[in-house]
């Protein structure tokens, strides 16, 4: 069965279930219901602080087949997931579904648990490192379900993703379960990805290395959602927690791409007072922010907000008065954490507020411009950020599909070729974000505009920028690199890519 993007997707997938097919970015909008949440009421005499992870597992009653969830605010410094899953494995429990918002290289102990049948299903928004590589070799019993950041919140709030126990790594927690991410040796800033879990899971456990006397202040996740609290020596390694941002690229080609992207932004007329902006944490994305910063300063422009995972670079722009406020779903570095602590105008947004398409309006709906990357793009502007061109999973949407859907102007910045591999192809290995949401592709050798955006084409024609069709860009690349041989894929589906609305936009088949 082919969906509207031409992807071959079965009507039913073993280990996933019946497939709702993707029909368009906003085709499933309408009236939604939120799930009923079971709550174990707590009376005045109940004690929430437990003594060990084993006691936690017993008290919340984890059994075979349950779904447990974690957030990835501790990034590659996280200890909590490994500790909890390790303890669950020691108790002989099996067939667990791990719903971790993003999986990093240091989560490699999961591989053993997968091989031993402790973990048989994974739900995540992004995967990198050994776990992603091994899953791409087919070691996981069921296909991974990959969500967008907004889509995961939707799935949790609607009940599509039922969480039995949510484990919330808490940089600060009090004895009654109030949590914040601002203080403590493992401070990580905004806890955007933990909110839906806290509100909808059957049981919620706060795991902290900074247990403070009641009440903690401020309260990001309230005691009314938290069943138990466990203190451990350390929830993570600060070096790994606050190291999410890279430097602005020094590569002249990357800098050229950034300048061209900036010229595109300005030409569309969206760079003006009250504008809103989001960019990624990578080298070229930051270079685009640098260009924008220069322009905004030169022309005295003040934006309404910048959003995203927030980096120190965006914080600098905020402190310079270029944006009135920041919307932060996660802090990528220490500077962002410190800014979040110091001012109310640097506000947290939960993953739901960030990008859930099924609430009364997510922040992505208010976004003017977003700068995104790609591993592959096809001639219909469909973008892949999930798999590399060797077919293995090395990423995932994260906020890619959410921001692309909401923003008035979605720009992909990328080199035209990466180590002989052309980025633009007839068909991508995996579709993460549909072409209807992608407006402009900026590469060092040319700029392609989605043919549906006649308004942008008109505006860019008046500039000196090298505008060409996406087919022309593809031809330029292939002339230099030659045409790559297609990767051979097996029939085994190792991942199901869910769009924001829960429909299946694509699947990943195991590379041979």
């Amino acid at each position, binding site marked *: 069965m082919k969906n509207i993007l031409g992807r071959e997707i079965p009507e039913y997938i073993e280990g996933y279930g019946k497939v709702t097919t993707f029909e368009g970015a906003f085709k499933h909008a309408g009236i939604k219901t939120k799930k009923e949440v079971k709550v174990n009421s707590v009376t005045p005499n109940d004690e929430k602080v437990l003594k060990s992870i084993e006691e936690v597992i017993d008290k919340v009653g984890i059994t075979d087949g349950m779904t447990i969830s974690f957030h990835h605010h501790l990034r590659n410094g996280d200890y909590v997931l490994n500790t909890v899953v390790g303890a669950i494995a020691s108790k002989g429990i099996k067939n667990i579904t791990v719903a971790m918002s993003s999986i990093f290289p240091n989560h490699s102990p999961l591989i053993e648990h997968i091989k031993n049948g402790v973990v048989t299903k994974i739900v995540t928004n992004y995967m990198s490192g050994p776990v992603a590589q091994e899953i791409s070799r087919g070691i996981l019993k069921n296909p991974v379900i990959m969500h967008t950041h907004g889509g995961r919140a939707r799935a949790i709030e609607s009940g599509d993703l039922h969480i039995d126990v949510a484990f919330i790594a808490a940089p600060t927690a009090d004895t009654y379960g109030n949590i914040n991410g601002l203080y403590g040796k493992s401070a990580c800033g905004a806890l955007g990805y933990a909110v839906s879990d806290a509100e909808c899971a059957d049981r919620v456990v706060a795991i902290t290395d900074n247990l403070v006397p009641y009440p903690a202040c401020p309260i990001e996740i309230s005691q009314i959602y938290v069943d138990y609290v466990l203190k451990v020596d350390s929830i993570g390694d600060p070096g790994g927690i606050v190291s999410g941002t890279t430097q602005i690229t020094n590569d002249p080609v990357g800098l050229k791409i950034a300048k061209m992207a900036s010229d595109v932004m300005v030409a569309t007329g969206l760079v003006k007072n009250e504008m809103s902006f989001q960019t990624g944490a990578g080298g070229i994305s930051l270079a685009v922010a640098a260009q924008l910063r220069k322009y905004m300063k030169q022309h005295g422009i003040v934006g309404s907000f910048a959003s995203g995972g927030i980096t120190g670079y965006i914080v600098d722009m905020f402190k310079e008065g270029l944006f009135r406020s920041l919307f932060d779903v996660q802090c990528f570095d220490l500077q962002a954490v410190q800014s979040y602590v110091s001012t109310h105008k640097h506000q947290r947004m939960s993953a739901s507020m960030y990008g859930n398409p099924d609430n009364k309006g997510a922040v992505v709906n208010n976004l003017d411009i977003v700068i995104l990357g790609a591993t592959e793009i096809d001639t219909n502007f469909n973008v892949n950020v999930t798999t590399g*061109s*060797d077919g293995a999973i090395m990423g995932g949407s994260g906020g890619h599909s959410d921001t692309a859907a909401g923003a008035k102007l979605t720009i992909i910045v990328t080199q035209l070729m990466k*180590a*002989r591999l052309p980025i633009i192809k007839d068909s991508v290995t995996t579709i993460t974000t549909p072409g209807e949401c992608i407006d402009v592709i900026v590469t060092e050798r040319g700029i392609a505009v989605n043919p549906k955006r006649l308004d942008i084409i008109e505006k860019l024609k008046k500039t000196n920028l090298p505008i060409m069709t996406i087919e022309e860009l593809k031809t330029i690349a292939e002339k230099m*690199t*030659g045409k790559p*041989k297609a990767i051979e894929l097996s029939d085994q589906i190792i991942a199901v890519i869910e769009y924001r609305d829960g429909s299946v936009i694509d699947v990943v088949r195991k590379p041979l």
Partner: protein
Amino acid sequence: MEINKPSKAGTMESNDIYVMLMPNPKGGIEINLQSIVMKQFGEEIEKVILETLKELQVVNVIVNAQDKGALNYTIKARIETATERAE
């Protein structure tokens, strides 16, 4: 041309290919290729190496190559350089 002694050309930098040529006592052309884009371009790279060796009239050689995403013109150039150095 004859490959009379071992020779090398190129670097391990991105976009380049490091090639080492050696005389082949068994006769014929033997290519040992490692590439960061093996699946997508392995066949193409070997084809270019063979074509270049043919143009240079080399019939007996062992080629060890480590490719970091070199385009065809680079592969051709490095093979030619190594061949001339091996004379």
